């Protein structure tokens, strides 16, 4: 069946993407999650302005592109990861995947259309970002800088890592509930590992009980291993690149994100082919 279909049929991808994007835009999720992320940014901004109010001075490199933008990206990344993680498993769960695969749809076109839909959803959110931060700049005079534009552009690639990660999880699971549980669990575990490693590093090895010392070593090894697997580390690298203002790090962050996304999309296609439409 799949031999008759092209590897990436443009028309198929277009139709599938349009169908999914339409349903995403007509739902409340995209708007609600964007509002939540903006409320969080507004909260941090309020605190920042409160700090300036208290001290009458603050010296920092363009705050909007750093600590006010990335919290929003984290929330939206999580939402899009959950969306992409259920995208394959829901179609499989409901049986629509089987019907689609009887038509002109193959694994590559299906996964790619899902990826494209989530990326387009994020690009719509990017428009919201521009509008929101332009408004923030006008209200507070913090300045809409080139740094912020660079951060927003980089975020497209960082979010791509999360979306492809969600698709990868989705291709592995057969049920929507399991996909969500795995994504929430992995998301939580990665954050716990991120903070746990920081906590254990801040302790002296001589002060630790032997058990904690071994655990510290193990967590460090896991962290190193996860460094190239976790989309969180790509986000962290991207945030560093923007904060440091290094063009080299910025470029490398984009390159790493593209490689990561491509690898996970290929893996997702491969797994979907292996597991078949019924899982």
């Amino acid at each position: 069946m799949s031999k008759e279909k092209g590897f990436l049929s443009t028309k198929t991808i277009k139709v599938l993407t349009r169908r999914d994007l339409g349903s995403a835009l007509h739902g409340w999720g995209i708007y609600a999650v964007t509002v939540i992320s903006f409320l969080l940014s507004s909260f941090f901004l309020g605190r920042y302005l409160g700090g300036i109010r208290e001290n009458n001075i603050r010296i920092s490199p363009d705050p909007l592109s750093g600590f006010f933008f990335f919290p929003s990206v984290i929330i939206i990344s999580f939402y899009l990861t959950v969306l992409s993680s259920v995208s394959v498993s829901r179609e499989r769960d409901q049986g629509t995947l089987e019907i689609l695969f009887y038509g002109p749809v193959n694994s590559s076109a299906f996964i790619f259309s899902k990826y494209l839909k989530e990326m387009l959803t994020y690009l719509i959110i990017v428009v919201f970002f521009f509008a929101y931060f332009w408004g923030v700049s006008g209200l507070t005079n913090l300045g809409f800088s080139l740094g912020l534009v660079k951060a927003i552009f980089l975020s497209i690639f960082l979010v791509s890592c999360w979306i492809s990660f969600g698709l990868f999880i989705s291709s592995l699971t057969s049920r929507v509930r399991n996909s969500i549980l795995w994504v929430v669990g992995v998301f939580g575990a990665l954050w716990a590992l991120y903070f746990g490693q920081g906590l254990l590093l801040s302790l002296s090895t001589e002060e630790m009980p032997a058990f904690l010392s071994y655990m510290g070593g193990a967590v460090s090894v896991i962290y190193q291993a996860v460094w190239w697997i976790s989309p969180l580390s790509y986000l962290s690298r991207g945030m560093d690149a923007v904060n440091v203002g290094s063009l080299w790090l910025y470029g490398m962050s984009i390159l790493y994100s593209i490689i990561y996304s491509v690898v996970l999309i290929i893996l997702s296609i491969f797994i979907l082919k292996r597991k078949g439409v019924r899982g």
Partner: protein
Amino acid sequence: MRKIVIFWGVFFGLLLYLQATSMAQTPIMSEQLVYSLNVYNGKGYGGAFTPQTEDTIYLMADKNSAIFARTTLVYFWPITAKFMAGFQTLNEEVVGTLEILKGGKLLKSLKPQDNSLYYPEGYWGETSVLSIDEEARTYYEKYKKAVDEYYQKISEFYKARIEHRKKMDEFLEEIKKRREAGEEFTSEEIEKSIPREPKPPEGPKFYTTEPRQDYIINLPVGTYRIRIRAEDGTIIQDSQKNLVVFTSRRTGGTGYEIIPGNRWTMREPCDDPARIIYAAGKNALYFNPFTQDEYNELYYNKLEDPQNPGRVERWRWVHITPIKDVTLLFLKGKEVLQRVKRLPYSVKQVPGATLGYDIIEYDQEKQPYEKPTFEGYKLDLSPTLENTGYQINLEKKTGGFFKGGKREVRLVRKENSRLLYALSIFPLVIGVVVFLKRRKRLVP
């Protein structure tokens, strides 16, 4: 489903347990071979030590730095999250020859040399020079001689002061008697004949530490390895360390230390030209410009203290010397709004129960027994200024601007912070519009 819930439950439970068991432990002292350091940091010399946990020593290229190995008691100090050395309890010198290796080959063998630190502007001055061998001994002798001479002068001063008090008593007695006898004096006559108080001698302005024996390292940029060979030819255990010798990436930049008028103790650095000064309301800012060099953050932080954290991909500016002979310009575009000269200032506590202080311009005639609290270029920011387009820059005496002295100043509108929440909900408004349009299309 159940399995997944149990898996994550156990995972997070274990993490919480780890956090709980990592609380308060008693410090443990351990005997270690450490390197005590006296290293050049771009502007002077600073001391630190390298515990066993640090396997690399960082030094600046083409400058003398002094290091020495000692056996001491090391313990972890949780407040600073750093290891501390108990040199007062145990400070045993590790004698031997320091070998420096490059690519596995022996490059240099060093014997300890006499060295001392010479502070031309005194111990609290901003510069220090490491002198070695004969020069170190000469500087120290010169300092000792200056101190001896000072003590001699102090002794003479005390004698002169006793003599002055005696003469003063006699003078007052005489004036009293003559007044009782009906004689009258003008204040000028008394001023003219009053015995003059002797002036205390000034101590030596420079300072030199007592010479001590260290290995003096001066190497070009590169990575090396060091170890100590004992007199019996063996390598002393735990004496092997990596050595990273580095230099600045950029030199001759301009950095600022900004003292806000409303919180003068809280000094804000503004070193990177990309940093923006966000100000709000009426305030006075006191600028202190410095020449600065840029170093790798990890290397420089580790140079200052081998236990400092840092990131190899980051760079940091280090203030080298204060810039004094310039004028600070406050500009809006090309228009100069204020030209500011460097002046000394005194911080005065507000008398009475009211808390607070005033920063006033220092006047040597009115405050002869005081020293200025700080010096700086004062910039008054008025709340009536517009919000954007302001910069500061440094103008040289000879004309033109000082390299890298420009900074952007933005006046923040803090009163609008509540409107940010209203702004946040605009995507929801768009969502409602989309929803209504769709509904209209579906339900004609």
